């Protein structure tokens, strides 16, 4: 029996055709994967299913009947539940309150609370979905928050459960637990739709898979009859060039040395915990890890955005400590350039023209400033030069930064940072949301920077990117560096295990290991 069928779904946002004639059939009681790159149209499709948008044309059939879904309310009524990528929880509410929100069972709360407790007890028994029901949602770890989201959907009687990139914030153990839960749901007849861009998850858990590219459904496969390689090819549309051409590194003296660096958040939790590392001129050091394990804080501390709480950073003869912090512009003066992880939030100002964005962080330089007024012509010419050097399209310094594509925005940021000929180049997620042509270009330039003698620290959640670019690889877990390997000796399995802090040689039990013991590992 078919649980969900889509026929000829179209959706446009202005000139962007986000979904083109999308068709899809999913059998009841199966786990179906939808895979595609960022911007392939997966999220739009799911938003249509959950009533966030209405399709411009096309039909949605639930259990064989044409169903109009114009709001989340109607989606819930049709038996659809959704676990969003960013959890939809009210932090200061308890788990019970979060679960019952929108399904309170009456104008007064007391009866509903009792009923919700009973129902949560039942769901725990049936699916093994255990959560501390009276804790505040905001206090729970992400894995449990996600479980609350699943409970919310099931509590509302969802027979079709959509999960949007559910593993991005999970450790491999939490991912395994999630997959066990999904299989339990499937056994009870629930239909699960798993949206992801991670091939191994599709292979591990799904029964069927559909591939989206450029807003279109390009293929449907039974999972047992396909391979990672085939799916990857379908996803990108041509053979992926994973190997980056590069010579062996010629590392020289260390340009950046970090000893015992910690960054402690306002809540007292160490985001970065006793990290020591060094990056030499002429090498690329990759930092691997599941996102949210301290990589962002590492970049922030090494670029002066966040002051160290403990430890020291040695740069070009200057030592930075908690007592003697420097701000981001002083780091730049010491020859540190930084391509940030999130170009929209950090790398540029989308409301600025390109030439204004192209001097961000260097706007106090003498080259751009007179005694009082800025040198307009110098700024525009400088931007035009950068655009020519990095093949930014359109090469118009007066165009608003927001109006460039992701790849071209990233090129503007890269051009700006590389133009400084830095001693140390910090790079975060350089190819996130960037088209494949620009990826190769960006990778080539990073290698060129290395060969020109810069010390490059690369943070990425894409293991393939880390493995193909790096000369040495560090692995981060919960704010600590839990392993270091030479890129030549690295493979995906080994890094994956380290990212889960389950070093096969020393600690077969993974997370059970106490944090203190692992610090020895960090100082390898």
């Amino acid at each position, binding site marked *: 029996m078919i649980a969900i069928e889509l026929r000829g779904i179209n959706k446009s*946002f*202005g*000139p*962007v055709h986000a979904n083109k004639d999308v068709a899809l059939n999913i059998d009841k009681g199966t786990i179906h994967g939808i895979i595609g790159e960022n911007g392939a149209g997966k999220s739009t499709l799911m938003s249509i299913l959950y009533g966030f948008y209405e399709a411009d044309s096309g039909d949605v059939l639930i259990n064989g009947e044409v169903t109009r879904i114009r709001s989340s309310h109607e989606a819930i009524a049709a038996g659809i539940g959704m676990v969003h990528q960013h959890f939809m929880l009210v932090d200061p509410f308890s788990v019970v309150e979060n679960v019952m929100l929108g399904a309170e069972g009456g104008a007064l709360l007391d009866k509903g609370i009792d009923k919700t407790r009973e129902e949560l007890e039942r769901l725990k028994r049936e699916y093994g979905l255990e959560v501390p029901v009276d804790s505040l949602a905001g206090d729970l770890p992400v894995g449990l928050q996600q479980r609350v989201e699943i409970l919310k959907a099931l509590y509302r009687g969802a027979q079709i459960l959509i999960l949007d990139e559910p593993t991005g914030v999970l450790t491999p153990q939490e991912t395994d637990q999630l997959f066990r839960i999904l299989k339990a749901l499937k056994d009870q007849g629930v239909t699960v739709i798993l949206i992801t861009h991670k091939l191994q998850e599709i292979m591990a858990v799904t029964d069927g898979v559909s591939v989206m590219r450029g807003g279109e459904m390009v293929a449907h496969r039974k999972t047992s009859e396909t391979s990672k390689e085939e799916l990857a090819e379908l996803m990108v549309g041509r053979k992926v060039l994973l190997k980056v051409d590069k010579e062996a590194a010629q590392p020289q003296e260390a340009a950046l040395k970090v000893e015992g660096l910690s960054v402690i958040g306002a809540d007292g939790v160490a985001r970065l915990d006793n990290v020591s590392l060094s990056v030499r001129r002429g090498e690329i050091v990759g930092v691997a890890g599941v996102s949210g394990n301290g990589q962002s804080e590492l970049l922030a501390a090494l*670029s*002066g*955005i966040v002051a160290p709480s403990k430890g020291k950073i040695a740069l070009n003869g200057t030592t930075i400590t908690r007592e003697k912090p420097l*701000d*981001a*512009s*002083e*780091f*730049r003066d010491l020859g540190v350039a*930084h391509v*940030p992880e999130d170009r929209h*939030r*950090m*790398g*540029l*100002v*989308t*409301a*600025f023209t390109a030439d*204004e964005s192209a001097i*961000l*962080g260097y*706007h*106090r330089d003498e080259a*751009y*400033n007179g005694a*009082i*007024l*800025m040198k*307009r012509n110098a700024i525009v010419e400088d931007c035009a030069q950068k655009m020519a050097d990095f093949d930014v399209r359109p090469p118009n310094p007066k165009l608003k930064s*927001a*109006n460039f594509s992701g790849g071209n925005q990233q090129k503007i940021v890269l051009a700006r940072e590389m133009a400084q000929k830095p001693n140390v180049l910090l790079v975060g997620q350089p190819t996130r949301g960037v088209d494949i042509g620009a990826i190769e270009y960006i990778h080539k330039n990073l290698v060129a920077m290395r060969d020109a003698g810069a010390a490059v620290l690369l943070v990425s959640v894409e293991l393939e990117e880390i493995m193909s670019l790096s000369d040495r690889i560090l692995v981060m877990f919960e704010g600590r560096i839990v392993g270091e390997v030479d890129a030549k000796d690295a493979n995906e399995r080994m890094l994956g295990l380290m990212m889960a802090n389950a070093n096969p040689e020393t600690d077969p039990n993974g997370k059970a290991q106490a944090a203190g013991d692992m610090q020895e590992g960090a100082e390898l």
Partner: protein
Amino acid sequence: MTGSNGGIPRWVDVGLIPLINILMAFFVSGLIILLIGEDPIEAVGILLYGAFGTDYGIGYTLYYTTNFIFTGLAVAVAFHAGLFNIGGEGQAYIGGLGVGLVLLSLDSSLPLILLVPISILASALFGAAWAYIPAYLQAYRGSHIVITTIMFNFIASALMVYLLVNVLIQPGQMSPQSREFADTSWLPFMHEVFAWFGMSITRSPLNLSIFWALICCALVWAFIWRTRWGYEIRTVGFNETAAVYAGINPKKIVILAMCVSGGLAGFVGLNEILGVHHRLLLNFQLGYGFAGIAVALMGRNHPIGIILASLLFGTLYQGGAELSFDMPKVTREMVEVVQGLVILFSGALALMIKPTVERIYVVVAAIAAGRRSTVEG
């Protein structure tokens, strides 16, 4: 970002939509005038004549315009840093206090040529100081600047009443105001300036402050768009995270922008105290601080727009005052109504008609293009 920008030219966004917003505000104002039993068209005629029909009217119009330019610029500078300075009222009040204190202590010992720059400095410093505290609290203590600046308006008001009732009051007088400054220290009125060149115009409160207001427009423009400090202010206003990344300290920028803003608001004190009243008194700032919000919104935070919007409000103030003679039911308060409606339509409802106008534009453009192609074909 749903690509609503696709193909809609800038003049629709910057010209047409704001114009329609203002017309809607005027339209509703007209309805209210109808409601109270007067003819809105006739009212507009009287209003325009009152504002521009005589040199006396023009003088008053420009005198009001001067104040609006100062408070409008003040609100705009804070806006560029992403801040809502709703405390222009208090900053103008305290700015006037600064001018008053300078004049009360130095009016007979210094020549005008020195008193003017000192007064400018004093009004800016006092206004800036009154803005500095909310700015500091926002930057370093996380207070909500909207709430603190509102509170500071009331605190300023209490402080001024206290000072004028208990400290600065002219001995032997009942009304809470200071003594008059020596007449050698008064900023020349415009009718006096004209008289130097042998031209005669009717007395009005318009004084040389208006030139300082126009100079401030140019300075603010250069500051915001042509200096690195303005660049940093705009960066913080658009995207604070990017600002920190760029090595800009948002806390310092909050304080810088608010101090500049407060200083500009303080110049109302210059116009009123040094230019018109020549003594310190109560409530000379009343309403200008809030009107500055309307001016900045209408002027889209750009000095040119602010000059035009200030002129409009100056016209309404002066024309409205004249109007109340001819139409006793249409009082000065009617101007507040218009002001409130302008803030509502150009500010809070600024985006209301945007989708409709853009849709109409697309349709009209398509028809025009179709006609053109049939003509060509």
